[in-house]
């Protein structure tokens, strides 16, 4: 009897151990897109509705229905990305600023919930989607300035290098591995210095750039 108990507890313990190890394990480094977990958010924010294309997805075939997006610039809401190390989450006032004037969706469940937070003057408890380990420093400002402003890439493309094609998503989900190998892969490539120049340079490859 007790042998059986002992064994079963040991086995159960090991299962939990291996399971928790597997759950926390670093995702494998691949060059392919690597989806993060689907995360449930307090409000199902539709990125596709805000940033998606207004016109048909396929220009060649205008008969396809419009996708109904508003083609908003990422930086309209994620306003800190070009100014700061962290992109920040848009303040609630940003959402309300527009939505108080959009009567047509005022009574939909998601917007009602949004206004509940606003009236209670409480921040929406969004869950983190893109988190890096504490020993990694990633600077949004450097990347946005370099690609969106100096090179003049379309903003959605510049953001999309790391965040994927957000305009097609509803709730944000990690699209890339965000591992060191994956970062370094892009840092080794040659990128144009700016929009007009033919000179190229690669990203910094010093350990201290990110690990400090």
């Amino acid at each position: 009897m007790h042998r059986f108990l002992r064994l079963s507890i040991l086995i159960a313990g090991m299962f939990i151990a291996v399971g928790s190890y597997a759950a926390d394990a670093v995702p494998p480094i691949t060059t392919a897109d690597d989806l993060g977990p689907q995360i449930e958010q307090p409000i199902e924010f539709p990125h596709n509705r805000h940033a998606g294309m207004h016109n048909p997805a396929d220009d060649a075939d205008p008969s396809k229905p419009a996708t109904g997006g508003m083609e908003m610039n990422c930086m309209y809401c994620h306003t800190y990305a070009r100014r700061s190390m962290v992109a920040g989450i848009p303040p609630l006032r940003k959402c309300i600023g527009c939505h108080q004037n959009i009567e047509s969706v005022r009574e939909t469940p998601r917007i009602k919930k949004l206004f509940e937070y606003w009236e209670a003057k409480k921040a929406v408890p969004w869950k983190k989607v893109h988190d890096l380990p504490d020993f990694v420093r990633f600077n949004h400002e450097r990347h946005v300035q370099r690609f969106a402003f100096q090179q003049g890439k379309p903003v959605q493309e510049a953001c999309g290098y790391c965040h994927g094609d957000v305009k097609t998503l509803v709730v944000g989900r990690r699209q890339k591995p965000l591992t060191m190998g994956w970062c370094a892969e892009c840092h080794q490539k040659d990128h144009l210095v700016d929009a007009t120049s033919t000179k190229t340079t690669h990203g910094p490859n010093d350990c201290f750039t990110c690990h400090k």
Partner: protein
Amino acid sequence: MIENIFDETTSHSTKRADNARQVAGYNRRDFLKTLGWGGAAVALSGCGNTSIENGKETVVSYVEPTDYQIPSIGVYYNSTCAQCDAGCNIEGRVREGRVLKLEGNPGSSINRGKMCGLGQAGVQAHYNPDRIHEPMLNGQPITWDKALDLIKEKTNGVKGEEIAFLTGGVSGHVKVLLSNYLEALGSKNHYAYEAVSPAVVRAANKKAYGVEMPRLHLDKAKVIVSFGADFLGAWVSPVHFSQQYAQFRKGNRPEGRGVLVQIESKMTLTGANADRWIPIRPGTEGILALGIINVLGTRVPADAAAVAKDYTADRVSKDTGVPAEQITGLAELLEAHSPSLVLVGGAAEGYAHGSQNAAAIALLNQVLGNVGKTVEAPANVQFAQITPTTGNRAALQALNDSMAQDKFKVLFSYGANPVYTAPATLKFQDNLKKVPFKVAFAHYLDETALEADLVLPLDSALEDWGTSIPEYQVEPHLSIQQPLMENLYPGTRGIGDILLSLLKQRRADEYKAYEDFYSYLRGAVVQNKAALGGASADDDTFWNDTLGNALVKLPGTAGSFPVRKSAVGLVLPAPAAVVGAYPLRLIPSVSASMRDGRHANLSWLQESPDPLTTVVWDSWVEIHPKTAAKLGIVEGDIVEVASKNGSVKSQAYLFPGLHPDAISMPLGYGHEAMGRYAKDTGVNVFKILDPVFDKETGELAINETNVRISKIGKRVVIVKEEGPNGGSQLGRKKIAVKVSSDKVDLSKEV
């Protein structure tokens, strides 16, 4: 059959019991064992790999952002440091509404953009986990309204003279409100108490120069002779003096590189930086000063020469233990390099004849012609009601006596912790118990707050409004203290706000215009904008500029010294004879970070090594190696230091920077309360001090305690930074043999 049944039952029950025992045995040991291994495996897999929290951690955004606030970008606000009385002007880095780091304010004439370690730890005082969060009556939470009503009720039934207010040094508008409140109560009992303060020097300066704190020019002196003034460590305004000292040491200034001579019984940080450090027999500093005047002979004014007539180099040498040729040498050095500067600090003043010591040393400054050159009069400042009230130890004695005679019914205490800092012989704690109603305004539940009936929690210095005028400043200005962030705890209040609420209980009409202390402060500053140099600006602009700089210049006229008084009548007692049973002199040391122990609960300060011994997180007993050899003491021996009035036990540290007749222990350790880091860390030296007082000022003479030391037979590894391989931090054994740097073979090291 019956037997059979009985048997069966028995055997059955035995089996069950066996089973139970086995299961129980399993539960107790094997179960825990297997669970432990399983748990360890879970724990191992849980940590180490990653700290990624996506999907788990919440990111909180602003509901309504402030225009200039960008996440991760710091905003800087100017304010004033409240960690010590130097009152440096600071600027704090605030990010996402949290203050993260403090720096000096470059616009300040006190600290010119620099800051000390004690000041840096101000952030920790603010985020300290042991701060009090809500008002408490006899240990039970109470609302602010009830607390203030209770004060009203208790102060109503008693006469004005039965109410006393104990504080540390105060200045600025808090001082105004405080005196107005006392006036409204009809009380004149304001006791300003500082456990460690240059009160004797102030009194001696007042006599010698006519001002308590003349302005010193270390940077203009060619030679500085300092009698125990630790101006680089903990004396008066260390950051200011450190900068002057840096100028003093520059070889390319017109006067050339200055020479510093430090004379003291226990080496201070300043002593360690001196060109010449002279150990002197405790208490004979004044004799040495007169000895130097004696050597100068006829080259000094007649009255000074007359006072020093009997202090020949030989006699002084015998009294002080300083060789005669060194005394002559000092006199020649000072005479040849004018202007010089002679300082008198804590080490020389802490005696029964401290005032005479200080007077003799001030006389030396005068006869050397330094007054007017390196010693200047401070400017006279208007607005006497906000100028600083400095604290001293005589106030404690006076308060204690009155309490012992049951004179007080209500006692307020703010910014002082006398239950911790009073010597045991004063029986301060017992006398305090005689006061029926005690109110403590406190940040922590320190020893004094624990004795109080009502404890009112204060905002931290980084949350509160205030103004201050430091006692020592070159250009007179009013420093503004403003909140760098919102209150951490909703239940704390600023001292100004509390005093204003209390005043409204008494003089509602007078103060009804002021909703809170902020509006009072703004009103007071803006009202005087013409005098403060803002005559042409409108109120808002002037106030915003004032807050932006967090300081505003005060109008003042250049000060001047009155005519020098004659030194006739200055007599110094012969050095005290060694008492048989207590052969050693205890010199309590004031360290730059611990001071009088008010910041003992800041772990950064506990963790930062003492500059001279590198000891952390504990008290220690500095013993001269010769004395230690005589007593058979080695480093790490736990020794008992016993005075007539008590004893403490701590670790021995052999230190050559001492007069062999003296031992030294740091003040500030050994709290019985106050918080997790302060409590039971080290021992409290204040407690064993003998009740000896300076004869002129009534100050407690902290260097007048004679002790004996004895081993108790225990030995520890001292936790310190010093020594090869980083010493024995955390008691770790040395991990590598020391090799001279040119012979390092890295392949063998790794």
